[in-house]
């Protein structure tokens, strides 16, 4: 445990993906008309991919080992 300082890597991964997911969802909702430079079929991609990332981020946070004294998952 010493060389990891009790940091579970799933916490920063979960945190990053949750944050980026939320950001993309919000951007997708408020800026629905941003178009890609040349191809547009991915239109709402910010929104739906943001949801996917958010789901993954939350999942990672859920399975992460609780900090010290918690029961190990």
């Amino acid at each position: 445990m010493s060389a990891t300082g009790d940091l579970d890597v799933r916490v920063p991964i979960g945190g990053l993906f949750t944050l980026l997911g939320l950001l993309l969802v919000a951007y997708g909702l408020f800026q629905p008309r941003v178009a890609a430079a040349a191809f547009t079929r991915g239109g709402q991609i910010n929104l739906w991919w943001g949801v996917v990332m958010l789901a993954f981020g939350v999942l990672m946070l859920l399975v992460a080992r609780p900090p010290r004294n918690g029961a190990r998952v």
Partner: protein
Amino acid sequence: MAPVLTGVGLRWIDYTIIGIYFAFVLGIGWQLRRAMRTSTDFFLSGRSLPAWITGLAFLSANLGAQEVIGMGASGAKYGISTSHFYWIGAVPAMLFVGLFMMPFYYGSRARSVPEYLRLRFDEKTRAFNAVSFAVMTVFSSGVSMYAMGALMHLLLGWSFNVSVFVSAAIVLTYILLGGLTSAIYNEVLQFFLIVFGFAPLVIVGLNEVGGWSGLTAKLSALAVAQGHPAGAYTHAWQGMDSPAHNLIGVEWFGLVMGLGFVLSFGYWCTDFLVVQRAMAADSMDSARRTPLIAAVPKMVFPFLVILPGMIALVIGGKGIIPAKIGAGGAPLLDAAGKVVLDYDLATPSMLMHLFPNGMLGLGLAALLASFMSGMAGNITAFNTVWTYDLYQTYVRKDADDQHYLWIGRVATVVGILLAIAAAYVAASFNNIMELLQLVFAFVNAPLFATFFLGMFWRRTTGHGAFWGLLSGTIAAAVHHGLTLPAGAVPGVKGGYFGVVTTFRSEMGQTFWTAIYAWTTCFVITILVSLATRPRKDEELVGLVYALTPRPPSTARAAWEKPAFLGIVTLLLLLVLNLIFA
């Protein structure tokens, strides 16, 4: 120079996403700052990480941006055959190192690959490997920085200097703070970022070209128009009977032996950059599972990194890969008068054209992540080899552990500074870098023969290993010097001793150079070993297969056993090859 690929241009949302990613990278280092108490913590993560983490890091450390960009480029050039670099050229070697070699690396408690050579053979063999490896890591790191600076300038108009120094500073900070743990955690983070950054690119791209069937139809039409068989881009094994019948310009034997055996086993089984990740695992079982766990995503990575290149070739009717620009600013033309495409821009061009703002930031963050982890992987391997194999061996033998921890941190700073210097050398003297990479290729080609004999033939001696390595390296240089790929002039591409054979492609030449180097090393090592005195059996326990008890597996469930994982992976590999044959 104006950026040539700007599609929509970056907006605040993209910068925010990239900024948040950087903050997390540094945050991981910051969280780990108090965890680095001994040199083993700093260089080997205290051998305390679970297999899934070391496994993903094992994969990720190799997945530098040159890999992501290069595989996209090859996808556009050679089509799905590029997946041979993963299926033939990586997975079997990853299974081999996990199942058969890790017991010696991990079991001998060697702290680095050169140190294993010291334990098994002698000092000169270790020194040869340690010095060439240390120099190589610094230069690869520099080349990675150079590639990033150049690409970011081209894509976004960012200053080369700023890109190089900012990325170097970030990598330096998180390694200084959290050592190998920091590098490995960031590699795991980067693995997921690459998956989530590139998967939507493939999904949107395939959607745009009409799915896999649409892509196949378009690529078949393109292949026929270029005078190739219709399946040239979409079948991995078709036309492998002769170099003239496929886009890679290699026949199956050269591919399987050169790439699949010599080069791939030489890299995955002996390169400390990847082996270090497995050495950081918390148990023998975890160490052995590390490359096996990595092999599974490795098998499906072609769909993530090669498909964007293939799609870029045909999307929108005539593709979106820009032409190579010559010195005069006009597009380069080949001998037939056709425009030469800048294949390295295939994947970046897909990012710029298919992603709207928001996703664009994510895609660029993934690209930057792969650049930085490529650098970090090299630097963490460098500081370890420098400290344990060079400094502790030749400068100060018996200092206390804190001293070596401190030296490791100094080596990190010096390594990064040297890498920056190498990046600028690469920027101004392209030929020097090309030449150096050639020399590294010569040194690496025979390596696997030495390890293979060392681990599986107890009679192998230190003299045999050293002279085998040296003669293998020379054989590589000689073979390269006597051959030339079609259309090249003698010089850095080969033929400097006179041209005896011409290969259809540079790849074919590379594969056959490796085959000659390996065979020479194999034969010379055996001959010299037979003529010199072997070490006593007692000294080789734990270092040689026949003298080492099989590691008992503590895995409870069948699916946790290394052998089981290996067999399943092999079956999956076979299925993939049959589907895309």
